[in-house]
């Protein structure tokens, strides 16, 4: 049974629809990504899940509860990390953890949580003196302190350096291994590809696609990328006639094609037939980046 169900969710601001009929369901124990360009309606969607916004239409259920009508019960099963939220600058890390633990009837022990997030050396530092990464880790700790079944993380690695970002990813995997369902909002493809079991790509307030990261890549037009430097110029018509071809690019004598497995075979046949040698031939899977651009352009 899904722990989060969003059905035909709609929300407008001043007549402009931010979310225009979004539906998805998150299963227990999965890391579910909400991916999309800036302003696509990702944050509004999760804010409806968190009960921070009242939907104009549609249905949202968190463990079967309505986040608005049953707000208090929902806050006990769902921990949230908001995109922009600060703490009182003069509060220390320890005091913030104690404060948030005091919000819940049965909080998690904050000490091991602080340890896992590498906050132990910073317990006596004031929030205002923390670096961006430390603030971010504290906000993850606070999202987990109520011992939630579901945690919603909105743009959690924005502003982190690459090392801190990788450490945070490891942490999210640990959290899930502990049985917590994760709803992850992001616009980083690498993050979504690495962490998510399934991804809903949201664009202009609608779900453009919903699949596993590999599934999203497969279903995009140019799932396979072939690049090489030909020993002699290739005829444009020959290239354009390749089966399954999605795009052709020529740059500095190098040819880059995207298409399907069928395209790969046809390119090899073409090269053999025209007796052209392909230097530095590379065949790679497209990344989620390519799939994402493809999916969000398709709905433009």
């Amino acid at each position, binding site marked *: 049974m899904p722990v989060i169900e969003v059905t035909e969710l709609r929300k407008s601001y001043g007549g402009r629809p931010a979310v225009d009929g979004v539906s998805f369901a998150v299963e227990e124990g999965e890391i579910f990504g909400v991916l999309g360009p800036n302003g696509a309606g990702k944050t509004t969607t999760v804010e409806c899940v*968190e*009960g*921070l916004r009242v939907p104009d239409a549609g249905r949202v259920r968190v463990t079967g509860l309505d986040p608005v009508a049953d707000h*208090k019960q929902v*806050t*006990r099963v*769902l*921990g*949230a990390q*908001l995109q*922009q*939220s*600060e*703490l*009182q600058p*003069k*509060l220390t890390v320890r*005091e913030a953890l*104690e*404060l*948030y*633990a*005091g*919000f*819940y*009837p049965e909080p998690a022990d904050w000490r091991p949580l602080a340890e896992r997030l590498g906050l132990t050396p910073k317990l006596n530092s004031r929030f205002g003196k923390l670096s961006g990464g430390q603030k971010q880790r504290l906000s993850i700790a*606070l999202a987990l302190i*109520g011992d939630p079944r579901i945690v919603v993380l909105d743009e959690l690695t924005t502003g982190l350096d690459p090392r801190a970002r990788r450490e945070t990813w490891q942490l999210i995997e640990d959290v899930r291994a502990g049985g917590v369902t994760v709803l992850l909002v992001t616009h980083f493809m690498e993050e979504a590809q690495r962490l998510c079991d399934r991804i809903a790509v949201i664009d202009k307030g609608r779900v453009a696609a919903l699949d596993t990261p590999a599934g999203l890549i497969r279903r995009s037009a140019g799932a396979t990328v072939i690049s090489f430097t030909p020993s002699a110029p290739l005829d444009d018509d020959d290239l354009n006639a390749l089966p399954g071809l999605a795009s052709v690019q020529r740059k500095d004598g190098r040819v880059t094609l995207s298409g399907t497995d069928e395209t790969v075979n046809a390119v090899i046949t073409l090269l053999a037939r025209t007796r052209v040698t392909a230097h530095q031939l590379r065949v790679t899977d497209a990344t989620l980046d390519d799939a994402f651009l493809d999916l969000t352009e398709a709905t433009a």
Partner: protein
Amino acid sequence: MTTDVLNTAVLKTEIRLFGREPGGVFWIMLFPTLLLAILGSIPSFREADPSLGGLRPVDAYVPVAVLLGLIVGGLQGMPPTIAGYRENGILRRMSTTPVRPAALLTAQMLVLGAGALLSALAALAVGRLAFGVTLPRQPLGYLLALLLALFASLALGALLSALARTTKIATAIGSTALFPAMFCAGVWLPVEAMPDVLGDVVGWTPFGAAAQALNDAAAGDWPGWTHLGVLAVWTVLLTVAAARWFRWE
């Protein structure tokens, strides 16, 4: 302890944070008594003044000092803090937990209220010990007037917190409202010494009414029901307006 409007962890935090703001501690808790001590050390302030009905100016300034702490607490302590909590998403973050952000408002009011009451006690004690100002002869009436004035001040603070969208605006309107409030309380000219018409007009403002009620109680009379009524009506109106316009984000 946790209810919708009171959470001990929130209260503990607000007490801590109040203690970490030297400015707030000084202006609310020390400044009123310090002002009384400075004025009281001027010899002419310790001589009976016929325009004050035979009271010494230092006698008249004790209720003023008592009111000053709670005016500063309500108008300068609360609005910037609450507006800052809203501006920085602290209230929003809190509303995703089982605790309602209202707990933060309650804690603010309790902390500032306690600070203002301690400040009032300090002013009364210094007045009595250093300058021989008699303690209020009608203590119950005095306490009632003081509490009503405190509620009015906190309600006014809550309304300003509701109306100000940013910390900067909150600080600005809090400071702007501070001067008329202090004038009505008699900081520049004790209410007893004001010309009749001015005194009557000031009596309809919350702090003017509070000053007159405190003076009555200090002299041994039960404070006039008009003054107490004015305070109560202001408190209700300000609270309703604050509740009407308050936004968590």
